[in-house]
């Protein structure tokens, strides 16, 4: 499968990259493949499949396998890596050669994985990375000896500096690949001997399985239940044989579960001792240790962590805002341009209000996402991320999460989208799923305009304890509510939905290192791109749907409004006729009459012209005022017309339809329609309400909108909005999932629609429940 041939079609050689987390595997992958990468998912699972191409005389397909400490399939990542190497993935044959990336300063643990790869009987090249760190730690490695003892070529390198990678490429391109090394570690004899007969059984039962894979398969089935059940149906004889061996070994009290680990390290430890010389006293404190003494100090540690987080969020808010404003201006500008150029007008409307607004909704998140991923990347690259999990683990374990959930959840205060994406760092899939499910409860920045509008409009001003404003406290309570519910939800999910073995949490604390800005920047761009492309598609589709729902069915214009429009025009024409009369002109000539034009321009600028007849001056002012009145009336009528249209559109009707369900929460049809529109994005409720109340294009700080809301009455005279209604609405927004971007990202990260659906249901349910209790309870207590 690997040789260039004489004819045109050259077969591509497949290289699998394997290694522990944090050893620079991805750095090497990027170096080898540049931008020629394709990212997808393995069939049916949420594990990412990354393949890149190294062009040349011998084209190489490089598969970046998930970082893992072992191939013993416990977690999904390990399972996939194992299946890929065994050639068991549908559509992917086994790789031609495996490059095992190893951390030179950490050889023993890294060689565990190497020993497992050797067992698979594939050609192997060991990439000994981070030799610079090893040197700094005072370690000297005899490469030649290591290579001899392993039975495979060892290529020393510093991938982050692109040193040594050339030799790897050279080896990968050779006509003949290295001979697969032989297994050298031994199992304790109590296990080794019976295992041989198991292998014979497997050979007989499953002749299709390559001989060199029998050992590892038998070993795994002996120690791992998941692996064993694979054979329960496919080869009952083998299944029974394994069960039998387990029983007899247990009776003899042989620790067969640990046999593999003991055997492997039994070979690795002496090997490493032979090959590595330590030139430094191991008890001297490294720079890393000294930094840790401060950063994980009992008191300074959490404080510094808190300060860092505050800094990050402050930066994200201050630095992202100008960029977001720029994007918004761009979107508006593009919209205006489209309206001016595209005909017919309904197509322009679809493009502007549907597509451009929808895409704009995605792109507006980019500055926040980029910045957050930048800081997250810095934390990961320096090694601080592990420390933050270390510090916070105790707190998080109380609700069934682990320290690794801290940063994703806190990122969700800015925006749940990068928060959910950051949950990838969680090794335990259950932890990761729970984190994703509760992240949207952390009050994101999109809720802020909604909080602002309703708190400012309906909650009393005034101070509490002289320092805090009532309104400020209200804002804080909203954030507190969201956070508290997130922890409760995590607790419930852990106990009820994801019952099972507790996720134990063993994590490597890598040595600190200087961040490599190029890597950080690359990852930042890569992740943001993923968001825009994947989530963007879904959001795009949904935006168009919502646009249709808001615009159709079109109704005939409201007759009252039409009449008012006619009246306004008529009033203007009357003025024109009057003016024409005083100046002795035909009405049609009034507009172009030069002295009038000049006088009106002067009046518009607030000047009194020098040489104008009093008649003309009076006429000019009359005309100008009349025009102003007409324009104002027309604007008002346009807004009212838009409000009328919305009321009779699908969304308006949906609002009316939902009203009986929403009334117990204190919401009328307009609020209900607003909530439905807000499904696109929370801030949309502001513009939806503005349209419904015919206020025109305003934002949450507009006194116009506030006044309209305050003045709104039911037919019986009761106010639509009371402080209680406002609180009920606020709480609804704290808890409800109103963001299709979040659903889209959750879909991508969990690889199914099931979890986003559950997320939407439970959050909407919570929102409804809380609003109901607050409103009804408040009414019962006489507060509303």
């Amino acid at each position: 499968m690997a040789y260039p041939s004489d004819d045109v079609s050259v077969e591509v050689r497949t290289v699998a990259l394997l290694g522990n987390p944090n050893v620079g595997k991805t750095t090497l992958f990027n170096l080898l493949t540049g931008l020629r990468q394709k990212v997808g998912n393995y069939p049916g699972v949420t594990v990412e499949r990354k393949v890149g191409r190294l062009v040349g005389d011998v084209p190489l397909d490089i598969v970046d396998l998930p970082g893992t400490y072992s191939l013993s399939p416990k977690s999904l990542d390990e399972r996939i890596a194992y299946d890929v190497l065994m050639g068991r993935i549908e559509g992917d044959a086994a790789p031609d050669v495996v490059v095992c990336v190893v951390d030179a300063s950490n050889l023993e643990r890294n060689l565990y994985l190497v020993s497992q790869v050797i067992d698979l009987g594939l050609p192997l090249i060991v990439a000994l990375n981070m030799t610079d760190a090893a040197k700094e730690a005072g370690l000297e490695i005899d490469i030649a000896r290591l290579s001899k003892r392993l039975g495979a070529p060892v290529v020393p390198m510093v991938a982050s500096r692109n040193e040594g990678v050339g030799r790897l490429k050279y080896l990968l391109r050779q006509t003949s690949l290295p001979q697969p090394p032989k297994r050298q570690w031994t199992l304790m004899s109590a296990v080794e001997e019976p295992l041989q007969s198991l292998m014979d059984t497997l050979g007989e039962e499953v002749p299709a399985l390559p001989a060199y894979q029998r050992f590892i398969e038998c070993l795994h089935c002996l120690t791992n239940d998941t692996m064993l059940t694979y054979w329960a149906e496919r080869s009952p004889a083998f299944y029974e044989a394994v069960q039998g061996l387990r029983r007899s070994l247990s009776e003899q009290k042989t620790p067969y579960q640990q046999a593999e680990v003991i055997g492997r390290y039994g070979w690795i430890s002496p090997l490493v001792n032979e090959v590595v010389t330590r030139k430094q006293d191991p008890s001297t404190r490294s720079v890393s240790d000294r930094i840790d003494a401060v950063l994980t100090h009992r008191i300074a540690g959490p404080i510094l962590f808190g300060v860092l987080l505050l800094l990050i969020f402050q930066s994200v808010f201050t630095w992202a805002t100008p960029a977001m404003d720029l994007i918004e201006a761009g979107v508006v500008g593009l919209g205006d341009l489209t309206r001016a150029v595209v005909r017919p007008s309904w197509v322009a409307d679809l493009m502007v209000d549907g597509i451009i607004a929808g895409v704009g909704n995605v792109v507006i998140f980019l500055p926040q996402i980029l910045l957050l991923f930048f800081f997250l990347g810095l934390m990961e690259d320096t090694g601080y991320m592990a420390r933050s999990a270390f510090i916070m683990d105790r707190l998080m374990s109380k609700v069934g999460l682990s320290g690794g959930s801290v940063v994703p959840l806190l990122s969700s205060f800015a925006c749940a989208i990068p928060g959910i994406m950051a949950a990838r760092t969680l090794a335990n899939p259950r932890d990761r799923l729970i984190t994703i499910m509760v992240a949207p409860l952390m009050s994101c920045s999109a809720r802020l305009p909604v909080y602002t509008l309703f708190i400012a409009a309906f909650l009393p001003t005034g101070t509490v304890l002289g320092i805090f404003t009532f309104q400020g406290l209200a804002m804080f309570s909203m954030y507190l509510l969201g956070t508290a519910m997130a922890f409760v939800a995590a607790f419930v999910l852990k106990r009820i939905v994801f019952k099972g073995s507790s996720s134990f949490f063993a994590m490597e604390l890598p040595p600190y290192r200087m961040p490599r800005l190029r890597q950080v920047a690359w990852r930042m761009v890569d992740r943001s791109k993923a968001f825009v492309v994947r989530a963007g598609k879904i959001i795009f589709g949904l935006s168009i749907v919502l646009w249709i729902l808001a615009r159709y069915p079109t109704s005939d214009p409201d007759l009252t409004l039409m009449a008012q429009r006619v009246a306004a025009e008529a009033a203007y024409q009357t003025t024109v006729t009057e003016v024409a009369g005083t100046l002795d002109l035909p009405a049609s000539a009034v507009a172009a009459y030069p002295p009038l034009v000049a006088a009106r321009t002067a009046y518009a600028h607030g000047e009194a012209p020098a040489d104008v007849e009093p008649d003309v001056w009076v006429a000019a002012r009359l005309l100008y005022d009349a025009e102003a009145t007409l324009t104002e009336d027309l604007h008002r009528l346009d807004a009212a017309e838009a409000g009328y249209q919305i009321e009779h559109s699908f969304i308006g009707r949906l609002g009316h339809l939902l009203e009986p369900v929403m009334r117990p929460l204190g919401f009328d049809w307009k609020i209900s329609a607003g909530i439905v529109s807000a499904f696109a994005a929370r801030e949309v409720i502001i513009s939806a309400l503005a349209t419904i109340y015919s206020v025109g294009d305003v934002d949450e700080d507009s006194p116009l909108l506030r006044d309209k809301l305050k003045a709104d009455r039911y037919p019986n005279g009761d106010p639509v909005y009371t402080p209680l209604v406002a609180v009920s609405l606020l709480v609804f927004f704290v808890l409800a999932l109103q963001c299709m971007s979040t659903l889209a990202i959750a879909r991508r990260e969990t690889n199914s629609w099931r979890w986003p659906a559950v997320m939407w249901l439970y959050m909407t349910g919570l929102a409804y429940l809380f609003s109901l209790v607050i409103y009804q309870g408040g009414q019962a207590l006489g507060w509303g």
Partner: protein
Amino acid sequence: MTLNDLNVGERASIVRWDTNAPPVRLLEMGVLPGTIIEMVRIAPLGDPIAIKIRGYQLSVRKTEAALLVVEPC
């Protein structure tokens, strides 16, 4: 004594896992009988703890540490 009883800076050798089902992940990361470890620090909130083992630092929760029988050396 167990890993939990070690003081910061103390070195010990692992005697055995006091359980029928030691956490496989920890085994694979080299936490085996006979391995020398050093207690590095306790997290600010009291859990987990960090130990030096086989040339790297590992964070272990106290519930797991309680299962590891060690002998100071």
